[in-house]
């Protein structure tokens, strides 16, 4: 990690976080990998364990993806710092 260049540090950054910019926004690398894992398990897992008759696999897969999304949104907070502008 780079040394602090004397600018005001952001208090919200936690010890041990590895931040990176992916697709136009900042993420914590470890949380991103966990999120990919959880989402894949949800979507693919839902699809595979569903009864083998259309349209159940797709519905279970989508439900799994949605549940995984909610889990990830609760577990992993946005890495955005909102600054209010004086008008």
């Amino acid at each position: 990690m780079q040394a602090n260049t004397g600018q005001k540090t952001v208090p919200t950054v936690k010890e041990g976080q590895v931040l990176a910019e992916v697709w136009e926004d900042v993420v914590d690398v470890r949380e991103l990998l966990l999120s990919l894992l959880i989402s894949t398990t949800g979507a693919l897992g839902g699809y595979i364990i569903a009864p083998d008759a259309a349209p159940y696999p797709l519905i279970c897969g989508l439900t799994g993806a949605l549940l995984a999304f909610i889990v990830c949104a609760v577990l992993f907070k946005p890495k955005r710092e909102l600054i209010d502008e004086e008008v």
Partner: protein
Amino acid sequence: MDLSIIVQMIIAAVIGAVVYTLIGVAPGTDETAVLAPITLAIVLMGAHPAVILCFFISAIVAKKLTDSIPVAVAGIPGGVMAAPMVEHAVVLKAHGRPDLSIRKMASGSVIGTLVAVPMSLLLANALVPLAPVIKVYANQVFLIGAIFLALMAREKVVSLLSIIPFALLIQGLRHLYWGIEAVPKTTTVFVSFFLGITIGPMIVNILELFVSTKRKDLLRDSYKKITMREDAKIKGIPNPFSILDIKETISAAIGSVIGCLTFFMSPVGMTIFLGETMSARIKDPIQKAARAISTMDALTNACYVSGVLIPLIALGVPLSPMAIGPANPLFNAPPRFTLENNLHHVMGSGGYFLPVLLGAAIALIITYPITIKYSTKICRFVFRLISHEALLGMFFGLVLMLAYMEAGFINIWGVMLVALVAGTLNRWGVNYGVQFMTLYSGAYISTLILF
């Protein structure tokens, strides 16, 4: 039409408008990546054709309205197509009028939709006689489309050079799957390769985190700083015709008409070209920027609506960057839809009006007032609650599931390969349009180069 179908259409349109109002605000959400997988899932779940179309139209109108919110509020684009507007929104912000941006853009967007819907229905009917010719020569048309879009792209040489190798990659994977009997010879894997292309840039970006020479450029030591401003208070129901002055309304309407006529062109290119042209002669910087963003937003909306509706109604073949991108599942979603039997074939000529009008109207009624009145609040809600990690994860998971669905576990790796190549090409300036056209003409191209 059955009353229960109409009720389903209304429900689908409301869901589409609400969901894509939120997704539109999230930064970095490319239109194809967020619209195509969910539309595909709805198609494959067996929804009624009118319900699918109504959902899709509502979703794109809402998404187009709200992807300008982060441009105005925070100066970051909510999607690829909003990128050209950032510069002008920054001008308005610098002159102390950031409140103008969102109102002008959203109102331009409404004009775009109001012009594009009737215009597309008319143009489509005029093009119907061409359909039989285009269908016979679909392969050639897609190849010419790939070459045409490559020549229009910023990086012409690499775009042109990428066509044949990329076609071989696609066709090579299909033959591999047939050879090892991952899928029967009658199955042509398509949709998962399509999704691989759409998430390509994201996959390359994530993999770069594991490349030591690239990683240092991606690492950050602070959160993403987003400067927000408060909403200007607006009482009552906003009216786009009073928010835009007469010149802006005319300019937005002309932009929309031209956007419809050039439905087969790259919308981002047209947006930049026309937006700048229409505002070039205005001296006052605030008026100039206001004219530019209202025209641009009208135009992107019109390009979207016409790019989807004209090929869908007239041809049944996805011959525009919009149709081949976000709207692709309406044309090609095997096993339900194929190029010979898709939404175009099952809808019947009069069936389009109600779903299109209902979808557009519901999205405008829900999303436009919300956008004008609560832009900052929605932005705060999305920025504070929905992490980028969760969004990236969801699209990644959906794509892998759809890959498995189409051709089993091996296809997950096949899709990763396609994403890796497509994302790298994308990074070099080979745009989605060229890649999608190549995907469509892959089988044809590989027979052409057999000597």
